[in-house]
């Protein structure tokens, strides 16, 4: 680890020495983005930036001129002037004019950003600790989106992948050439949904729905990555967003696939599963959905997130265990997994929790038991 740290340090020093050639791929500036709004914002940003640069050049120019010319060691004698009404009025008036010149384009961009009317697609986005839920309103399609970067990568046990911390299992898919409206809310604490390339950032506040929108032009199909931008607890840095823009036709196909997948899942839950199958599936589900709070070895975390290894519920109270996974525990960080996981996944993870880390109850929880418990 220290060797790698040293390598990085050397590469940094080297990079500075070779600047600016090495700087080119370092990402110094805001992305221009792919939508009309994001490009207006970028232009606004550059406008203000250059205004600031020029003010800086003038003010610091005068200042450094005085520092070099009017120093005592060069025999400068201080003059006595200490006010000038005209000058003072001038440098109050000039910034005012500059500010008005900045405010005009800023206002028009802001008005454009707030116009969420006449949308073609509505997606409800719900923040959870620590994942995003997407519901396509009126389409009967909805899913959760979890980080897929593994703990081994995060804790430096294996090489980090290309999209380290910026990859999820289910992408949020949007069509190009259509106005997509995002309705953003939260299930627990305040999150913020942010994709820089489309310049959408809105706080997700529990009990409150925020609106925003984006229209990705045709020809800009691709994958765009974003992150949660408001501190939302321990795993705040581990709930990214992956937005996939596809053509309108591909979007329709994708919607149909999603609906078909749901039907297949419901049918699968009626089938029979062996203990071994459930344990394998359960371990995967646990790592994805539970380990963030309850620990990779079921050891819990601090005083807020209880341990599962050796817990009385996991050892003795099967009905309670099923209930808390399905319905969550109100007023605590334990959320309802009823919509988040399929019946098979819930059954598998409960089976896993009741048999892993020395909780050897030998019990199997089947998907049918979950379906019954949900009734």
């Amino acid at each position: 680890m220290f060797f790698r740290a040293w390598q990085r340090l050397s590469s940094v020093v080297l990079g500075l020495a070779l600047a600016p050639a090495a700087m080119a791929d370092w990402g110094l500036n805001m992305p221009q983005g792919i939508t009309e709004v994001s490009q207006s914002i970028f232009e606004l940003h550059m406008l203000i930036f250059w205004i600031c640069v020029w003010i800086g050049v003038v003010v610091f120019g005068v200042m450094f001129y005085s520092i070099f010319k009017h120093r005592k060691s060069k025999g400068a004698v201080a003059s006595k002037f200490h006010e000038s009404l005209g000058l003072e009025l001038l440098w109050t008036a000039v910034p005012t004019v500059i500010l008005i010149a900045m405010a005009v384009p800023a206002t028009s961009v802001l008005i454009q950003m707030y116009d969420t009317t006449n949308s073609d697609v509505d997606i409800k986005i719900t923040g959870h600790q620590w994942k995003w839920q997407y519901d396509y309103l009126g389409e009967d399609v909805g899913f959760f989106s979890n980080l897929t970067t593994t703990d081994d990568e995060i804790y430096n046990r294996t090489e980090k992948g290309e999209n380290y911390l910026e990859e999820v299992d289910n992408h949020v898919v949007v069509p190009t050439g259509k106005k997509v409206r995002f309705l953003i809310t939260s299930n627990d604490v305040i999150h913020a949904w942010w994709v820089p390339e489309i310049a959408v950032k809105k706080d997700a506040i529990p009990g409150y729905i925020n609106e925003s929108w984006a229209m990705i032009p045709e020809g800009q199909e691709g994958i765009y990555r974003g992150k949660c931008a408001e501190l939302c607890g321990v795993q705040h840095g581990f709930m990214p967003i992956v937005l996939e823009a596809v053509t309108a036709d591909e979007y329709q196909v994708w919607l149909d696939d999603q609906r078909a997948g749901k039907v297949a899942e419901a049918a699968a839950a009626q089938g029979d599963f062996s203990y071994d199958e459930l344990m394998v599936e359960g371990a995967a589900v646990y790592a994805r959905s539970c380990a963030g709070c309850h620990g990779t070895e079921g050891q819990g975390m601090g005083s807020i997130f209880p341990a599962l290894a050796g817990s009385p519920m996991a050892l003795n109270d099967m009905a309670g265990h099923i209930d808390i996974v399905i319905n969550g525990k109100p007023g605590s960080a334990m959320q309802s997994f009823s919509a988040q996981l399929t019946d098979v996944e819930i059954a598998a993870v409960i089976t896993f929790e009741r048999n892993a880390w020395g909780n050897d109850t030998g019990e199997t929880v089947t998907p049918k038991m979950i379906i019954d418990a949900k009734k």
Partner: protein
Amino acid sequence: MILPAFGIVSQIIPTFARKPLFGYASMVYATSSIAFLSFIVWAHHMFTVGLPLQAELFFMYATMLIAIPTGVKVFNWVSTMFRGSMTFETPMLFALAFVVLFTIGGFSGLMLSIAPADFQYHDTYFVVAHFHYVLVPGALFGIIAGVYYWLPKWTGHYYNESLGKFHFWMSFIGVNVTFFPMHFIGLAGMPRRIPDYALQFADFNAIATVGAFVFGFSQLIFLYLLIKTIRGGEKATDQVWEGAEGLEWTIPSPAPYHTFAEPPHVK
């Protein structure tokens, strides 16, 4: 909480430029307007929480207005230096660094005040860079400048000037190496308050960490200098600085335990 730092710098620059402060009255009015405006701009921290458009516009305009009195102050400081007779003792160095770096923090503040652009800046390292530029080379450098400026009056000894200058340059380099790259990683899209980050932010983060350690450890120089000055050093005169003016320079150095038992008369 930056206002007293403005005050300190407004004491120091005239002293070392050997010239009265330019625009005293407008400084007072600018300070008052900043105080007034700061009551009506609070929502600029929440442009992204979903305020109604009208509220958003109001807070954007109000926040932009703060740039005007702040600008007046910077212009006044620069005019105070202009055609002065400057020397560059440690308090002056910190005050000059304050003017330059605080202004940079002010520029990024102006950029943040533009609500549409703030949707891209909000809660990223750009904000972290901004308020650290305001608070560290702003407020903190103001305080350190004040300590160097009044230290001979407090202790009766001059501090070691070369050690003070060494402390200044280490701090100045450390601060900039730490916080300037944060502008870049913020614009490139790194959110604040995350313990781990995607790979494209790695290089600038490594630089910032190196800078932070330089800055942190250079404060130990300051600690050493303070203790050394309290324990002894060249005897300070009552006036302390050639160009200093004001009642505090009329009393002996070190300042006796009780001062002005008889009120002085100010003409």
